[in-house]
């Protein structure tokens, strides 16, 4: 009896290390009928939050500066290529001499709150707000004032990106295998991210893509390009008229 309790306790503790099962959830939202403006759209990539690390045996996140630097470069390059392919120009945000750094940071934090809200209250079916349930509606905005920042003048859209990667260490993988033999499911590695596009003329969030299981090894150029195509899944295209009219 005592023995039984103890074992159950140990399993319960191990369960804390295990990932929660993914609840049924949508990943992408887009404003109905939205298409990028015809011609070359100028997209500013807001300073992305990209953090890459390893996951120790016990699940401790080990931030890795080299991997993160590689990922930042790889993802920026892959994004520029992906956008050039559809005829857009992507530039990285630069506060320049505007003195708008703190405000841009606050907008980035606010965008995080906005993305959280979309994920929790629209994508996550169990928590969906009744007013967000209707006819594929996607009505979210960060406000038109974002587009009035001097450091964003001449831009059409702002792209916000966050990715967080923890690669399971060799030790974590061994633990995972041993745990599996004991019938305990253990997650190794953690790869999440979201990307969202704001129309700077209206402030509307025209598209958001969020995923708790991202693929592509961002430490390599090919992997980053795979990740970017996954991040950009459902990215709004140009209206067909615009595509036809493009040279």
């Amino acid at each position, binding site marked *: 009896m005592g*023995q039984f309790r*103890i*074992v159950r*306790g*140990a*399993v319960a*503790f*191990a369960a804390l*290390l295990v990932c929660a099962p993914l609840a049924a959830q949508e990943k992408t939202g887009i404003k109905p009928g939205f298409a990028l403006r015809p011609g070359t759209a100028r997209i500013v990539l807001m300073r992305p*939050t990209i*953090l890459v*690390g390893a996951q*120790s*045996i*016990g*699940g*401790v996140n*080990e*931030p*890795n*500066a*080299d991997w*993160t*630097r590689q990922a930042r470069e790889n993802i920026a390059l892959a994004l520029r290529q992906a956008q050039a392919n559809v005829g857009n120009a992507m530039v990285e945000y630069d506060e320049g001499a505007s003195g708008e*750094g*703190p405000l841009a*940071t*606050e907008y980035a934090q606010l965008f995080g709150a906005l993305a959280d809200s979309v994920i929790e209250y629209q994508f996550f079916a169990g928590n969906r707000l009744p007013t967000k349930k209707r006819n594929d509606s996607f009505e979210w905005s960060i406000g038109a004032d974002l587009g009035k920042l001097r450091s964003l003048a001449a831009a059409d859209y702002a792209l916000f990106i966050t990715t967080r990667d923890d690669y399971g260490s060799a*030790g974590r993988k061994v*633990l995972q295998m*041993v*745990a599996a*033999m*004991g019938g*305990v499911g*253990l997650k190794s590695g953690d790869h999440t991210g979201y990307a969202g596009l704001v129309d700077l003329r209206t402030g509307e969030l025209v598209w958001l893509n969020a995923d708790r299981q991202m693929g592509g090894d961002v430490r390599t150029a090919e992997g980053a390009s795979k990740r970017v195509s996954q991040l950009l899944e459902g990215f709004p295209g140009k209206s067909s008229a615009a595509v036809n009219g493009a040279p």
Partner: protein
Amino acid sequence: MRRLFPIVMTALTMAVTMAGPTIAADPTLSLPTYTPAYEPRTVDERGLWMEADEEERLLRDSPLRIREGKLEQYVRDVLCREVGAERCQSVRVYVMEVPEFNASMLPNGCMRVLTGLLLRARSEAELASVLGHEFGHFELRHGLTGFKAERRTKDRTAWLAILGAMSRTDITDTRISLLASFYRFTRDQEAAADQMGLRYMATSGYPARTAAEVWRQAMAEQDASEIGHGRTPRHSYVSGYFDTHPTNLNRAMALEAAAARMPGGGEARADEYRAAIAPYLPRLLAAQIKTYDVGATDFILASLAAQSGWTGELLFARAELYRARGNPRDLQMASIWFRDARAAGYAAPELDRDLGLTLLRNGQADEARKALNAYLAARPDASDATMIQTLVATEQ
């Protein structure tokens, strides 16, 4: 996190390893070899610095940061005076408006100082003793060794959990002893940083004995807070198994013993400190009063008054503190202190408003109206003027 265990490091700087440096017994003034423009070396260290850089970016842009005046510059000057201009080059200081007694330092040299510390410190030496402790963590690279120990502990615990479950073995005792040694290590790191801070003090000319006084003061404040909450204060000499920090008493005694073997030191520079903080004092006091911790706040006010006397500013703060709690006896004392504050030269018309509201709550309607009318006469366009007018007109 317990409020009165100050200088709690953030998760990033959280420390642990079972085999870290122990310098607590070394009474000499020798300092570690200084490396100018130190750059992180290993994979782990570079990773932690990168994460710290990200966190620093958020601190830099935070709405809580006090950018006005030269407060951050002054705090940094105190640190530089303490650890020397050369060591100081690696540090940036950010002062955040948070009414808690705390400071922390990230592995990359980013120092975060909360305004609760600035309100409580009574001299440059007291401030320096806390800053020096944090700088000690930084110079001893505790962020890195702590990270490694945390990882090692959790790695072992994870194996224990899985293997224990599979072999139906009770692992509770082993887990507890692993965790206990982890927390013992963090306490050792705190003690090491304390001793390092003491050496900076002694070599810089700030009196080293001040460090122990800071902890004695923290204990007294903790007592006052407990009594204010209707409880009996008690301090233990021995830390619990799972405390990350040594007890305040333990720290104070260790620091006193070590300081006794060091040179006496020079000026604590209390006057300079008071002058530098004075422009920010109303803001710091206002934030502290609203913590609703009457015992601790009254203690802080009394210790400030022990230096400067009960100024109009301190009396006003005390009155506001008791008015906020609002028991009948509080209201009575508050109205007395408001009037004392006026007599001591506190000139702002808001005093009349708050006195009036206090008297009104206490059933002294005629006197209340007089005070409220005085406020309205001085501030006819105040954002709450119509609200106060309504009260004057309707409350009997």
